[in-house]
Every structure is written in C-alpha cells, then in structure tokens.
C-alpha cells in the first residue's frame, strides 16, 4: 500500500444541536483511506455512517479535527474550492439515486461534464461511452421515471464516474433495490474498484458489507471496528 493516504481524518468531530441535546454524529474519528481501497461502513441506524461519508466527500464540515485529501489540508477550505475538489475527485452514489427527473439518462450523466464547461460534442462521446459501458446505451433518451431502480442506479454510477474521479462514495447504494439489482450494482462498483477507483460503501446489508476488503464498524459516532 502507498505510504500517503488518499484521505486522512484525524480526531474528526461533528455535532448536531437538537433542542437542548448535542448529538455526536462523529466523535473523534481518525481514519486513513488509501488509493484503491474497498471499504464498507456498517453500523446501526444513527451511528454516523452517512455523516462520515459526507465528511469524506467534503459535503460537510468538521467541528473539530483535521481532514487531508491527497496530502492537502482541506479542513477549513472555503465552499467554492471544496466544490471544485468534489467535482474533480469525488463521485457520489445515493440510496435514492438523485437523478433529475426532467432530464434524460444521458443528460443526467452529462451533468458533471456540463458543470466543467466541456464542449457539447466532446460530452456526447463520453456520455455514450459511459452508458454503453453500463449496458444502458438503448436507455439514453429515457427519463428516470421510465427506468427500473437498477437502471436508475446504473445511470447514477455512470454520472459518478464520468469525471474519472479517484474516489467513489456510495451511501446505501442498494437500499432501494431488489436482490438481483443489488448484486448487479455491487458488481459494477467492484469492477470499478478493480480498475483502481477507491470505493467506500455504506450499507446495512451484511452480505454486501462482508465483500469489502476492509470493513469499518460504527456505533454512536465512533469507529469501533476496522479490519482488513
């Protein structure tokens, strides 16, 4: 393994104020994630898995501790620059897919490229390649509502990988899928990992969790198990 981690969390805390109570969603979490890792994050509901993933994905900000991405200290980076780091380095996959309903599959996949200002002709080629790679070539002009859950999640994967980001974060990617689609989606993610992408999957499904090379277990905002 590389000596320099892709992401290094040190004593990261994240609290939420709910009424009088302070919820410690992340409680002094320290974690190194290396390029090419395949990590699953498991734990009971409310244990802070999603919060951790959002933290890794620079969507959330720490209350304490430090965050390093590829050796860069990003803990206090302003939002404009966080957005840029996200755009170029991080792909997200969500339980509810988060496809934009009015856009076709191709347009949804194209969105990250549009945000970078890439010319349309170049975008079209990349999008077609990505959709074809995921077996969705004939669904390019369908809207999300016209696709099955598994197909929607594959569109979302195409979107998350179109920028060739080195890191893929998936929050319960199979949570809304039947077992057949789930296996399909996990296979795709694992293929991507084989090709070198760093994969972090939050899941409730122990079968899926066990497949990861490294398994992290969280309880009450703490990492209580980390093996592999």
């Amino acid at each position: 393994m590389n000596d320099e981690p892709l992401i290094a969390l040190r004593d990261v805390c994240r609290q939420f104020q709910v009424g009088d109570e302070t919820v410690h969603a992340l409680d002094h979490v320290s974690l190194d994630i290396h390029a090419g890792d395949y990590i699953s994050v498991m734990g009971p509901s409310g244990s802070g898995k999603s919060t951790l993933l959002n933290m890794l994905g620079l969507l959330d900000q720490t209350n304490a501790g430090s965050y390093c991405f590829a050796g860069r200290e990003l803990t206090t980076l302003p939002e404009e620059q966080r957005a840029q780091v996200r755009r170029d380095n991080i792909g997200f996959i969500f339980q509810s897919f988060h496809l934009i309903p009015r856009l076709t599959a191709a347009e949804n996949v194209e969105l990250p490229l549009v945000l970078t200002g890439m010319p349309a002709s170049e975008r079209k080629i990349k999008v077609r390649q990505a959709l074809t790679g995921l077996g969705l070539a004939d669904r390019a002009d369908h809207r999300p509502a016209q696709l099955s859950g598994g197909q929607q999640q594959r569109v979302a994967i195409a979107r998350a990988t179109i920028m060739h980001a080195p890191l893929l974060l998936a929050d319960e990617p199979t949570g809304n899928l039947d077992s057949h689609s789930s296996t399909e989606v996990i296979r795709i993610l694992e293929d991507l990992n084989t090709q070198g992408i760093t994969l972090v999957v939050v899941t409730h499904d122990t079968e899926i969790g066990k497949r990861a090379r490294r398994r992290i277990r969280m309880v009450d905002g703490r990492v209580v198990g980390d093996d592999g």
Partner: protein
Amino acid sequence: MKPQDTLHFSYQALRAYPGRTALILLAMCIGVAAIILLTSLGEGARLYVIGQFQGLGSNLLIVLPGRSETTGGAPPMLGTTPRDLTLDDALALQRSPAIKDVAPIILGAAPVAYESREREVTIMGSTPALLSARQLDLALGQSLPDTNPRVATAVCLLGETVWKELFGNRPALGAWVRIGESRFRVIGVLAGKGQSLGSDMSDMVVIPVASARNLFNAPSLFRIIVTASSQGQLPQAEQDIEQIIRQRHDGENDITIIAQDSLIGTFDNILGALTWALGGIAAISLIVAGILIMNVMLVAVSQRKAEIGLLKALGAPTSQVLRLFLTEATLLASAGGALGLVLGLSGVLVLNQAVPDFSAQPPLWALIASVLITFFTGLLFGSIPARQAARLDPVAALSGR
C-alpha cells in the same frame, strides 16, 4: 458551465413546471402590455394636442392688449390702464422685416341670415393675411380683397358649416347675406379645417376688419395674429413687435405676446409628464409581477432542494447555483416581457383601428424601459430565491431538509 448550457438547463427547468411558468409569463406579459398601452395613450394625447396647436399655423405670434404678469412677483402697477390695440398699430407692425403676415382681428357675434334662414355666428373681422397666417384654404371663390384695410367693403367669406346651414346645396358665391343690419356679398367659402384649439373656423364668417369695426362699433382690436418670416425669426419678430408698439404707445409696454411655440412647449411638458405618470403606474404592475416571480421561485427552490444538493455534490460552486436560478428568473421575466410587448403593440394597433381620429403610439423610451424593467425585475426578484438556493447546505438539501 458555459452560458449556453446554463441557459439550456434553466430552460429545461422552466419547461418541467408548465403551470408556474405560464402563470409568471402571464403576469409579466400583462405588466408590460399595460406599460405600452398606457404610455401609448399618453403619447397619443400629447401628439393630438400638439397637432391641434399646429393647426393654428406655424411661426405664430399672438399679440393681446394689456400686459399679463406671467412672472409673478409684484402686483400690477396701479393706474396703468392698458391702451387698446388699434388697426394702425397692426399695420405699423408690417414695417418689421422679421414679420410676414399681420392679421388684425376683431371678434364678435351676430345673426347671419340668407332668405328665411338665420343663424347666430361668430364674426371675425380681419385682412387677407388671416388666411395665410392661420393656413386656411378656400373651398370656393376668392379671399378678401387686398385693398386698404381701413376701408370697409361689404364682402364676406363663409365657413363651411355656415355655408351648408344657410345655403344647403345651393351656390353661395355672389349671393347677399345679411349680417346684423348690413348686407354682405359672399365671395368665398373656407375649406373645412375643423376644430383647431379654441375656435371652429368652419362655424364662422370672415369679413374685412373695417367692416367689422363698423358692424360692432368697436374701434379697437381683439388681437393681432402675426407670423414670423421663419422659425428662426420668431425672437426677432417678437422684439420688433414690442418695440413698434411701445413707440406707438408712448413708451408703455402694454401688450402681451404669446408665442405658439411656448404654448406647445407647455402642453408638451404637461402631457409628457402625464405619459410618464401613466408609465409609472403601469410599472407598478410589473413590480407585482416581480413579487409573483419571487414567490413562485421561492416555492421552486424548496421543491428542488434535492436537485440543488445534487448539483453541489457534483461540484457546482455556489456562484453557479446562483446563476442557474437567476437565469431562470430572468428568462421567465424576459419571455413574459416579450409576450407583453407583442400584446401591448397589438393592443395599440387595435385601438388605432377602432378610433381613427386618435393615433396612439408607444413612445420609444417606454419600449426600451419596459424591456429593461422586465429584465431587471427578473434579476432583482429572482435574486432572493436564487441566493437562498445557492446558500443551501448540500447535506441538508440532498436529504430534502
């Protein structure tokens, strides 16, 4: 993100919500159409009035006896009874090279009769210069004789209405009519000029000034109408009139000169301001439309939180999200404005078809202003929702909170 992509994305978003899009388009459309229609009416009124003034003849100066203190300030001096204007005063004005026509005017009313028909009509005593000064044309016959104006001649010109009332369709030229106690021979009929501010020239009889003096037993003039030899000569003509009359009135400055230009100017200003006011009132409806835009956009932002969160997760910077929603609002406003422009201009067209005498037309500034206002309404009222969208926390937005 390229501008055309931003535009396309916003356009797709607008199409995805046809109901709210149509509502805002309608509101904007009505606002802009109202501005255009109301200012067109105001401008039409202004042009109408100016047209009426110009019907009086151009380069016109009106000389009235007595000094009116238009400058305010001190009350009129005691003991200065103004002298009357006389025919000799008028004739003396012809000395000035800056002056083209001098038409002395005596005005009165008398019954005019032909055979059994009789009619009370305004009688205007003047000289042939009246016709050129007031740009009157003859429909029939000839003008007043160009002889010594101090000599009374028993001839008259009939206005068109008078002619029709008294003669019906019978020929009038050469006929004798009775005006008051005297008999006058009809030598011409004025071409219908219609109403032109103040006097209806078609309901009038024109006789030589000396005849009018005898008829009404009035030695003094009602006023003198003067035309300058050119527009540029107007100030010189005004100066000459003052000087000549002062000489004749023992150094007393006891006349008032009204330049038609300044009258037009005054009305022009008043009606111009009216048009602005109408435009302003209509602009309020645009503000209402703007508030509607803001409201609907706010709803849109809360409906589309997940989408905003996603854009941020995909790496859209705050400024980009702001731009997307601003573009949406501006697109809405501009499209509504364009529709309003079409609707307003068609309205003006229909109005002009329906009322041929009155020509409403949108002033250029109102067209430009309504386009600009729509654009800025979109920007201004879109900016609050857009800023709200841009400021959303991505995690909360993604979970729809």
